[in-house]
């Protein structure tokens, strides 16, 4: 039981990761694939942030006059800030590509795009 409840953050991460990954593999709609990718990336962000969190820990800002304060490890959060920016950029580039694919092909369904390419 301890493995299930005590490590619940990892179970959430794995669940989200699989949902995202499965969406990416199984869906033919290009926007849905990107949504899957975003969920997949978000699960990794939760993995990082939850491993940096200490129970009762607070933001790592030194306040004068207060001793024995437990701080949360800021490094995973900082790393993930970078990963969030990367995720936003990836999503923006991906959506921009989808917009242009829609303009070029008139559809965003993968199988219909392949059909059009095979005719050529």
């Amino acid at each position: 039981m301890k493995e299930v409840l005590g490590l619940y953050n990892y179970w959430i991460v794995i669940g989200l990761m699989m949902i995202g990954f499965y969406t990416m593999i199984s869906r033919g709609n290009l926007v849905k694939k990107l949504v899957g990718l975003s969920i997949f990336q978000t699960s990794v962000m939760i993995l990082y942030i939850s491993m940096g969190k200490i129970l009762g820990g607070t933001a790592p800002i030194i306040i004068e006059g207060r001793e024995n304060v437990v701080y949360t490890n800021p490094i995973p959060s900082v790393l993930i800030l970078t990963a969030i920016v990367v995720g936003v950029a990836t999503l923006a580039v991906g959506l921009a590509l989808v917009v242009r694919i829609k303009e070029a092909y008139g559809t965003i369904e993968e199988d219909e795009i392949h059909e059009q390419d095979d005719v050529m």
Partner: protein
Amino acid sequence: MDDRVILRVGSKILIPFILLFALYVQFHGDFGPGGGFQAGVIFAAAFILYALVFGLGAAKAVLPPIVVHTCAAVGVMIYAGTGVVTLLLGGKFLDYNVLAHNAAHGQEWGIFSVETGVLVTVFGVMVAIFYAFAGRRRAEP
């Protein structure tokens, strides 16, 4: 447009405060939660709200795309430029200690300068992404 008086008046009241809050987040960033990235996004949000309520044309009149693209490029140069300045002052790349007469002030100025670069770039990129998507016509009628 005329039937959205509440939206228009409401956003006109809100936008200055959003901009002000972005600056608060920016200037507060070196000794509290905040920083250039968040500030840039909030700053961009004000203009995106303006574009949503008053239309893309009005927003582009206030903030022409060329300014937005310049911002996106200039911010990166401020960031990397800070590093080059520290190099020229004899320190390592991004070693803020050499920026001022003592290390503590140098760190403060260095972080602020870097965060300003981040603010300018993030603001420019966010608005540029919005313009790029909003300005696109539908492929089919």
